[in-house]
């Protein structure tokens, strides 16, 4: 306790140096918190769940998956045909439609990536949207009702709406990117709650199917994506045993031979999809994170080394008074660790508040994840990272303090 008070007083000795050390720690912990939050989110998404999980049905041999829409109904039932076959508790289909608001010109601002699906599934099957607080859930239900009643409705994420410089009620035309020559006219009927879908859009799948039919009626050759418009089917199953049975039903069905399909857990599906980003994720884990940690330790080591050098006489006096070398070692380690803990804790807490509450998530597109949030555990990461790096960085200066030779110091003073 007495030593801690001395540590606290020494930290207050130079507000500028302590402040700069804390600031440096905060900046690096901020970057590290963002990186780790993304990694933790992806890790969680790719981790196997034990119950109430989702399975994905995709084309077996090709990415991106492109299946005929004729698969949709039976796959949504888990290929159940007999009375005793197992059925999923819920399901949804995804049909991706990318378009721009200006024909022939594609920019970050004018591009919309939209999920074509059954409106009623938006708030029962979409991650996060299926577990909203009551007020937000009611608001979303009202928007979904509009989409049910207006086949040309479009629900936009808030950032996308802002990027397009549009408002709810406006009408827009999207010129197809993947569905070449199939342009869709929409009325914006609402927005999704702030979060991971801020840059996405949702529309009624029936509108896309009708547009494909209309194209085929007007052209001699069918649209190239006519038999490839179903991208994913999602199934909700209560447990692993049900999933195993559903997978067996789909695998043994003769209805899905051209192309063949596969059924896997959401985490496996996401892992396979994220394989394309494995290099980026590897670099974040094994290059960026260690570099930040070492930089942080060096920043703290420099500041503490200067402090120890300036205080050699004082440390010598403490030795003269009877302080043991290990007590001086602890004093220096304690000062550095205290600064690291303050900087790390403050930074992680501030990052949590700013990213989650002020910014509504970190907008960083990886695969179909558009926004990331800082988990509450990040406060613990910040403390551990700041404290750990400070402890590591202060080992050498602490040993220098421990080894101060009293006679040498005073011969120089005199």
């Amino acid at each position, binding site marked *: 306790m007495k030593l801690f008070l001395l540590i606290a007083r020494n930290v207050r*000795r130079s507000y500028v140096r302590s402040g700069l050390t804390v600031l440096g720690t905060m900046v690096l912990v901020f970057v590290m918190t963002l990186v780790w939050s993304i990694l933790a989110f992806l890790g969680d998404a790719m981790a196997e769940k034990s119950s109430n999980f989702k399975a994905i049905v995709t084309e077996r041999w090709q990415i991106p998956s492109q299946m005929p829409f004729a698969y949709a109904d039976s796959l949504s039932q888990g290929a159940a045909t007999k009375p005793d076959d197992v059925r999923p508790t819920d399901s949804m289909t995804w049909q991706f439609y990318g378009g721009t608001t200006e024909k022939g010109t594609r920019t970050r601002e004018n591009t919309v990536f939209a999920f074509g699906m059954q409106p009623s599934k938006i708030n029962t099957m979409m991650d996060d949207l299926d577990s909203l607080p009551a007020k937000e859930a009611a608001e979303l239900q009202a928007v979904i009702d509009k989409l049910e009643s207006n086949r040309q409705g479009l629900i936009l994420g808030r950032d996308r709406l802002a990027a397009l410089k549009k408002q709810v009620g406006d009408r827009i035309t999207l010129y197809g990117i993947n569905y070449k020559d199939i342009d869709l006219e929409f009325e914006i009927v609402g927005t999704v709650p702030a979060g991971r879908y801020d840059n996405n859009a949702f529309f009624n799948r029936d509108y896309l199917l009708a547009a494909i039919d209309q194209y085929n009626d007007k052209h001699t050759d069918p649209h190239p994506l006519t038999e490839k418009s179903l991208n994913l089917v999602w199934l909700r199953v209560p447990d692993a045993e049900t999933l195993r049975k559903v997978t067996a039903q789909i695998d043994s069905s003769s209805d899905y031979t051209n192309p063949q399909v596969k059924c896997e857990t959401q985490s496996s599906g996401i892992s396979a999809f994220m394989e394309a980003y494995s290099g980026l994720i590897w670099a974040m884990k094994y290059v960026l994170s260690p570099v930040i940690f070492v930089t942080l330790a060096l920043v703290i080591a420099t500041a503490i080394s200067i402090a120890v050098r300036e205080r050699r006489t004082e440390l010598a006096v403490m*030795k003269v*008074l009877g302080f043991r070398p290990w007590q001086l070692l602890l004093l220096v380690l304690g000062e550095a660790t205290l600064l690291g803990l303050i900087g790390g804790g403050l930074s992680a807490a501030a990052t949590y508040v700013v990213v989650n509450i002020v910014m509504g998530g970190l907008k960083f597109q990886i695969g179909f994840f558009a926004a990331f949030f800082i988990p509450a555990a990040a406060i613990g990461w910040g403390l551990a990272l700041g404290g750990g790096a400070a402890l590591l960085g202060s080992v050498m200066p602490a040993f220098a303090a421990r080894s101060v030779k009293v006679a040498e110091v005073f011969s120089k*003073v005199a």
Partner: protein
Amino acid sequence: MPAKPIVRVKNVHKFFTRGSERLDVLNGLSLDVAEGEFLGLMGPSGSGKTTLLNLIAGLDRPSSGEVLIGNDRVSAMSEGQLASWRTRSVGFIFQFYHLLPVLSAYENVELPLLLLPLSSSERKKQVTTALELVGLTDRMKHRPGQLSGGQQQRVGIARAIVTDPLLIVADEPTGDLDARSADEILDLLGELRQALKKTILLVTHDPRAAQRADRVLHLDKGRLVEAAEVVG
């Protein structure tokens, strides 16, 4: 001079090496200091005064020979034993005071007591007594930067006596003070010596300071060259 020696330095040699060069600082020096004696050590720079003080105070070890303080063989102690011994047995007064700038006068005086198994109330009693003895009870909450040089040295003296040590060593305690403050500090040392019956070793270049001692020893090139009884 009282007969019973409390400091015994027996045939002490001390040398340092710089590269391949050997520097002999003390050459077979022997010295006894009686309990309650006020001893002055004088000599030119490099004569070995501070080295001798460091050996007696347990801050350094002799290359050969023995240093005994009371019943403790200081020259044979480990670094850890020396640290503990210093806290209990020696009070230091420095030329440049060397107070910790982040601590108040009270906290600076309390610092060596933190290393002893004392309760908070015991520490408070001892610190208050020490500050009363040096006449600084009204400045106990001041930081060193808020005190004059003379006041800082008084705090340094209070820190030196707060553990009730056997021996007080003072290395040029008036060297950084004006004449008036120096006299006040020397008066205070004299009063403390009378009141507490402490043994005091004073290293100084100042003949006026040396005059306050019972006995003055002169060192030159690591040897005692002269001893003089000083009256008063």
